């Protein structure tokens, strides 16, 4: 699926990022204060820890129409809450694989470890993710061309 042309601009993916407050969010912040350029496609939600992210958030984001979701936390061993990112690691593994089984493109769900000092890595991650999502095209998973006035018939 290739991106389509509107009148003035190409389609740009909308990405949602769940960044943990202590590491990844700080890293993103550092990228900003260092005036590093990265694609503006990502919208950030700060969470206290990557372990806070329920697969429900990821699926709700896709349901709402986001083209890709990134969950980023502290490196294993460095979690501010000791073990939160370990739970996240387990959860993200099954989320990614299970949604792939359902038929959702695997590039739409991404994860990374970005520490508070890794401004450069954050820029790299966002750039890569944006590129990958742009390649697979807009999220049409939940659109419904068959809708008839929102009424569910018996068929």
């Amino acid at each position, binding site marked *: 699926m290739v991106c389509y042309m509107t009148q003035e601009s190409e389609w740009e993916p909308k990405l949602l990022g769940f960044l943990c407050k202590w590491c990844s969010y700080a890293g993103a912040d550092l990228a900003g204060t260092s005036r590093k350029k990265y694609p503006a496609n990502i919208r950030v939600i700060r969470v206290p820890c990557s372990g806070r992210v329920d697969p429900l958030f990821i699926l709700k984001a896709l*349901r709402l129409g986001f083209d890709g979701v990134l969950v980023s936390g502290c490196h294993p061993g460095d979690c501010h809450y000791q073990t939160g990112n370990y739970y996240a690691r*387990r959860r993200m593994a099954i989320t990614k694989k299970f949604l792939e089984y359902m038929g959702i493109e695997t590039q739409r769900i991404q994860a990374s470890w970005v520490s508070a000092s890794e401004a450069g890595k954050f820029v790299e991650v966002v750039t*890569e993710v944006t590129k990958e999502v742009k390649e697979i095209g807009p999220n049409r998973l939940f659109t419904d061309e068959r809708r008839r006035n929102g009424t569910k018939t018996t068929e």
Partner: protein
Amino acid sequence: MKDGGMEQKLRSEAKALLEQGKVDYIIGFEAGSLKFTTTPLITSDKDDIDRLVINPFIVNNLSVYLSELKGRAGIVVKGCDSRSIVSLLQDNKVARENVVILGVPCSGIIDLGKVEKLVGKDRDEIDDITQDRDRVVITVDDNRREFPIREVLFDNCLGCELPTPQEYDILLGELTSAASDEDKIASQKKINSLKNIPPEQRWEFWRSEFDRCLRCYACRNVCPACFCQRCFVEETEPLWLLPVPRWQDNLVFQVIRNMHVAGRCTDCGECERACPVNIPLRSLTREMYDMVDELFHYKAGMDKEASSFLAAYEATDVEDFIR
């Protein structure tokens, strides 16, 4: 599995448990109001105990009742159900001392849907269904037909990994053997066929299945692993899903339900059986079960000393997908 011996033993043990005050109530099976059906019997009255039965139709996973009942229960479980109890023990939802597990060595439960398809008649039009070890005899209009038992057992019974409870207090019969590897593969035909079609088609498949979903929540309510007082679908702040049965929301509901029970779901198959519109839910639960096994070498409900899957981690957990 119809065994007068097991039934008698069950009744005498259950009666003794109540009389000796070791449990407050017994949870078991009694004859249902429809042919070839059983129904849960939850009672603290020892006069009800003679109604307890064991036969190839005791399909329900009774451990679902443990989360809501107070006090001590004597519960009748097959191998698969006992694994749900182990899951509940891991979650600290049930205390081991509050349960007396009456284990039934199971040789498979008969799927009436399969029987109906085989003979082309509905359940109430069939005169008799009798299991005779590895064969089943189905009588319609005085016409006896025999089939191998495997043709009428539930799919997940075909691939059963633990027919006899590992965790029990009283075992009501002899141990039975688990399924062979070929049987396990046969029980997963549908999932494997799904994996062989391209992703867009898979998504389209699930979209059309969930179009039928009415959001009755039978799948959730029948599941022993779903014991949240307030399910995420009932949350209004934030509102994750409207209670409106649009396929998008139905799909999200079921996917997240599977995520939330990952590693605690033992693939007992109750969700699929309960669904009134025949959505193949086991194609989701089984896949999750296998995924957890493959990626983390963990089988739900086997080791009561182990931590609940999502509440644990290992240093060696896979992370090759993380940048």
